[in-house]
């Protein structure tokens, strides 16, 4: 095996010889605390005893996703879909098992998270681009495309707090897709904006898909899954109930819902 660079080891640069995403027997347990923790008084009065129920959001899930695959994660509410995306996005560390990503990951989990109301649109593009991991030159290079796609030419030097919520989301989306990540995580993102913008964002994502990007998409909209994905992972109570072609996956999901 060729020697990997340091940046490949930490996952900041693509190493084509390995899969895009690997989940190796990942278990994620949530502690549902019965009271909000963290006070000194709590710690002094009950140093060891704490009251919580454990809930396995993911139970020994193993998945391998190759470069260029587009995987739809489906399942009922609380089946662990969003937890899975957060693990791949590195927002949460797995309690057990390992998550390995290979290449730049960007998430469309929350558009415009990190926008600062007092800063202008222009400043927020720079700030948000940097939050999503872009360098200065990369932001400069993508700046015009972002502005054009979001349609904020007129408002570039206006504070973002005056933007309508729809406009802010559009700007967030424009920045996120401009990151041009190797692995894109999408969570119900198409539910935002007007019909025209939804159409444009779907086209943009299909474009990225054709360009060979890896997708992980969480959606309850089975039509979107059918049009975007070539593989479906069905989660049920934190376990993989199905992993395979889209048609069979969607059928399995409908059976599951019919069974109650």
């Amino acid at each position, binding site marked *: 095996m060729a020697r990997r660079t*340091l*940046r490949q080891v*930490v996952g*900041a640069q693509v190493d084509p010889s390995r899969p895009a995403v690997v989940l190796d027997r990942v278990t994620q347990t949530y502690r549902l605390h019965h009271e909000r923790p*963290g*006070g*000194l008084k709590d*710690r002094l009065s009950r140093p060891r005893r704490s009251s919580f129920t454990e809930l396995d959001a993911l139970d020994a899930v193993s998945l391998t996703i190759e470069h260029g695959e587009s995987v739809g994660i489906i399942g009922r509410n609380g089946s662990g879909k969003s937890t899975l995306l*957060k693990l791949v*996005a*590195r*927002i*949460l*560390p797995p309690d057990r098992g390992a998550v390995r990503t290979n290449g730049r*990951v960007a*998430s469309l*989990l*929350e558009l415009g*998270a*990190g926008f*600062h109301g*007092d*800063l202008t649109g222009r*400043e927020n593009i*720079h*700030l948000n681009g*940097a*939050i*999503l*991991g*872009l*360098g*200065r030159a990369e*932001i400069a290079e993508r700046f015009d495309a972002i502005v054009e796609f979001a349609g904020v030419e007129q408002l570039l030097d206006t504070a973002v707090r005056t933007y309508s919520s729809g406009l802010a989301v559009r700007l967030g989306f424009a920045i996120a897709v401009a990151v041009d990540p190797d692995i894109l995580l999408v969570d119900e993102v198409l539910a935002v904006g007007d019909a025209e913008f939804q159409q444009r964002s779907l086209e943009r994502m299909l474009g990225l898909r054709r360009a060979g990007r890896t997708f992980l998409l969480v959606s309850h909209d089975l039509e979107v899954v059918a049009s975007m994905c070539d593989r479906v992972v069905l989660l049920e109570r934190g376990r993989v109930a199905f992993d395979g072609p889209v048609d069979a996956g969607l059928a399995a999901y409908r059976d599951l819902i019919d069974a109650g």
Partner: protein
Amino acid sequence: MTAALRLLGTRAIELIDARELLVQLVRKELKVRYRGSVLGFLWTMLTPALVTTVFSVVFTRVVRIGVEDYAAFFIVGYLLWQFLQNSCQGSLHSIVGNADLVKKVYFPREVLPLSHVASQLIHLVLALMVVTPYLVWTRGPAVLVHLPAALALLVVLAVFVAGVSLWFAATNVVLRDLQELFVVIFLVWFYASPVLYPLALARAELAASPWLSVALRANPTAVFLEAFRAPLHGSIEVVDGAAIVTGPGWPPIGSALTATAWAFGVGVLGWLSFARRARTFAREL
């Protein structure tokens, strides 16, 4: 030990990759603080100027601390103290206050507290530029000659402040009472540090109680304050109960080395405790 080194090594690579984010956050801090105007910066100098005036009157007229050019002596220490306290205060809220962001996007979390340290450092440098003419006027041109020593010490000090700030930022996530304790911690630390008085004078007065004297010297801020004042105000010795100021001059090599050791130790430990806790921030918030 190896695990700790590997952890910090990985974090360091990620931080280098995220340098643009740090730059953008610092720019945001400065813009919000100065509101984009020169006058904005001058406003932030109002507090140190007023505090210096009040303390100078109190400690040269009412309670006499016999230090030559007390105002120059005080302002140097006070600016340094403000750097420490404001960095820690900003960092304290930096993770908890950005909970939405931390729960939704991954980036090396260190940039949030470090952006406060960096913007406060820039502020300290600007403030020092403003007071330097006054220091030269009261303490003589030797201040200019020894200015490089002060700048070198700033780098060392910044490492120390970064370590303390990272600790405060991470600890506040799991122990929210820290926000309430913060004011008290810094009030006590302020009076226990030789900002208002020279260390030599305090040690001479406390010679009868060796424990207090040791505690006073064990405080890292004492080391930084004394070393930092040497080039900008002077070194102070106590002869027959009177404070004699010599200088401005180079800081003693011993105190420069002690300061560096403190900075390195606190910097690494603070970063390590932050890096260990950062993994679960998204869950704790």
